[in-house]
């Protein structure tokens, strides 16, 4: 089925005075707390990806970033392991916090209350979630003590390695990497990477609404065909084997399709897009429905189709995407320039600064007046900065300012050049 993205998509937004008043109260409470020099109110800050605040310990307090109530729980609060010492973590609405439990990092969402139980070092770790949500990044468990989350009458036990549990009206489990075992009163499910499970999922609401199967098919809710003990294939990016971020489901379902076949697909409809000037006419319109893909592969492929394929592969198969960008870059037309620019961006995104710099250099040498020359000049600053070559990055920023005094990146370039230490 051919699909076309319209020029405008209408998305209605929620609003209302209650929402505004709530956020207003939170904002001004935070500002007041700042003025008073207290740290009792959440001051939003994005969580670092990998920060260990308290290695080997039990609980770290996000002192300046959130309100975190941490206190020993009385013996009556422990539901399992009567002798287990426990702690309670509470985050306020809008607050967040992170704990390092040694072999697990737990992020607590807004308005969350969790009791953490651990009898002793090396014993079972239990998070009893009273409300809110936790996002757990847990080392694979073989040889390690059991790690589990209790949410109402649902138990989520880690097989490994990253998942989140939200407990509101329903319990919802989202697995980003690895596999967890979810034990509900009536059944047990093994949820693999990319899958979600919800206690509200049994009576399928979409089916009740009379929607077609594709709508009612919510692959995220159960993984009934995965047998307990089995492991779903996990790719390095944390997605299921399908390479899609659709939840993993049983083989043969839409979400479990192999990734590679998508690559041959060139979706029609791009000719009227707001893309680069004048490239809409020569697209190779590969079949999108029914036609054998081998035929599509054997056809001469236009630069536009190659570019589309390369960008589609960036997430799933960056090596193949690089190869395609290099194929494009071997030419001498506008697609060669775009391919080279995209390659530089891809290398930078992948942290391959040397390769990114090489692509940047090649672009500037071959296409000094190309459509992306200004972007490439600014990309050079970023790449050099990422490579910790501060002096060179500063020079690149100054060079950018000289070449594009009214350019789009003047403001950040100026800030960058001014913030850098003076040259000796």
């Amino acid at each position, binding site marked *: 089925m051919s*699909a076309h993205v*319209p020029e405008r998509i209408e998305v209605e937004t*929620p609003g209302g005075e209650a929402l505004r008043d709530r956020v207003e109260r939170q904002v001004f409470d935070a500002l007041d707390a700042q003025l008073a020099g207290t740290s009792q109110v959440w001051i939003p800050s994005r969580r670092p990806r990998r920060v260990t605040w308290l290695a080997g310990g039990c609980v770290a307090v996000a002192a300046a970033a959130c309100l975190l109530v941490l206190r020993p729980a009385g013996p009556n609060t422990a539901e399992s392991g009567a002798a287990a010492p426990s702690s309670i973590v509470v985050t306020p609405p809008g607050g967040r916090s992170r704990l390092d439990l040694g072999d697990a990092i737990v992020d607590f969402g807004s308005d969350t209350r969790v009791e953490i139980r651990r009898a002793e070092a090396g014993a079972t770790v239990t998070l009893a979630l009273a409300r809110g949500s936790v996002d757990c990044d847990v080392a694979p468990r073989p040889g390690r003590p059991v790690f589990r989350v209790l949410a109402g009458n649902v138990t989520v036990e880690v097989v490994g390695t990253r998942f*989140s549990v939200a407990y509101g009206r329903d319990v919802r489990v989202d697995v980003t990497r690895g596999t967890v075992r979810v034990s509900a009163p009536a059944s047990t499910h093994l949820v693999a990477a990319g899958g979600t499970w919800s206690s509200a999922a049994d009576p399928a609401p979409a089916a009740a609404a009379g929607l077609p199967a*594709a709508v009612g098919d919510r692959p995220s809710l159960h993984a009934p065909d995965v047998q307990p003990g089995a492991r779903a294939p996990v790719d390095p990016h944390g997605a299921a084997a399908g390479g899609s971020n659709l939840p993993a489901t049983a083989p043969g379902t839409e979400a479990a399709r192999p990734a590679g076949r998508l690559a041959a697909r060139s979706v029609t409809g791009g000719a009227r897009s707001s*893309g680069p000037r004048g490239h809409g006419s020569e697209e190779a319109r590969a079949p999108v429905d029914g036609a054998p893909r081998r035929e599509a592969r054997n056809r001469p492929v236009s630069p536009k189709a190659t570019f589309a394929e390369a*960008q589609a592969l960036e997430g799933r198969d960056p090596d193949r995407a690089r190869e395609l960008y290099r194929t494009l870059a071997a030419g001498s037309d506008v697609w060669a320039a775009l391919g080279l620019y995209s390659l530089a961006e891809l290398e930078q995104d992948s942290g391959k600064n040397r390769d990114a710099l090489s692509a940047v250099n090649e672009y500037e040498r071959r296409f000094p007046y190309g459509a992306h020359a200004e972007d490439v000049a600014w990309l050079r600053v970023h790449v050099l900065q990422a490579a910790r070559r501060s002096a060179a990055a500063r020079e690149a920023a100054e060079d950018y300012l000289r070449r594009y005094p009214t350019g789009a990146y003047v403001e950040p370039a100026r800030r960058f050049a001014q913030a850098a230490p003076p040259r000796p």
Partner: protein
Amino acid sequence: MGLGVDIDPLGCASDAILVERCRMRERGAERELFRSQFHRVHATLFRILGKNRESEDLAQETFIEVFRSLHRFRGEARLGVWIDRIAVRVAFRHIASRQPLTVQLELCPEPADERAPPDRRAHAREGLRRLYQALGRLRPAARLAFTLHVIDGRPVGEVAHITSSSAVATKVRIWRARRELERIAAEDPVLAAYLAAGGRKET
């Protein structure tokens, strides 16, 4: 360079007065600024993220950042545009800091349109969910450019301005996002139908 950014001298003057009052820590002025900008900022964040809880959190973060940074506001653009830039930076940080392939768990239920039959509302809601699931697979910069232009309805020049990018780079990002969405929608009839209807409920 025509950025498509609205420059209104009278508006700029009133912005400057309001900002000056805020700098003097006049709480009434701060609330006035908040109330005049909140719904627009929240709507933009919602259209970028598709999730109410996150957009609410990020709106809060945006305004705290705004009040912290007011001393840097030089009045070169409208206050609203300056705030939009902060909101977009906050959204970008948020999107970029997440696991790239994390499945979106919960979309805020779309505000019910009582005029549409229930099955169409449900269908549209599912289409919306799949749209944001697909957007979650895009690069952060492409997602921002696409949502700001196609969903939030801003001209390319304005998107370029508030994302601190060139117009060419912005166009390419929007184009890439469009192609990727078309590729995904080609395999997803519900998303394709939703897109074909332009997000309206008569899918």
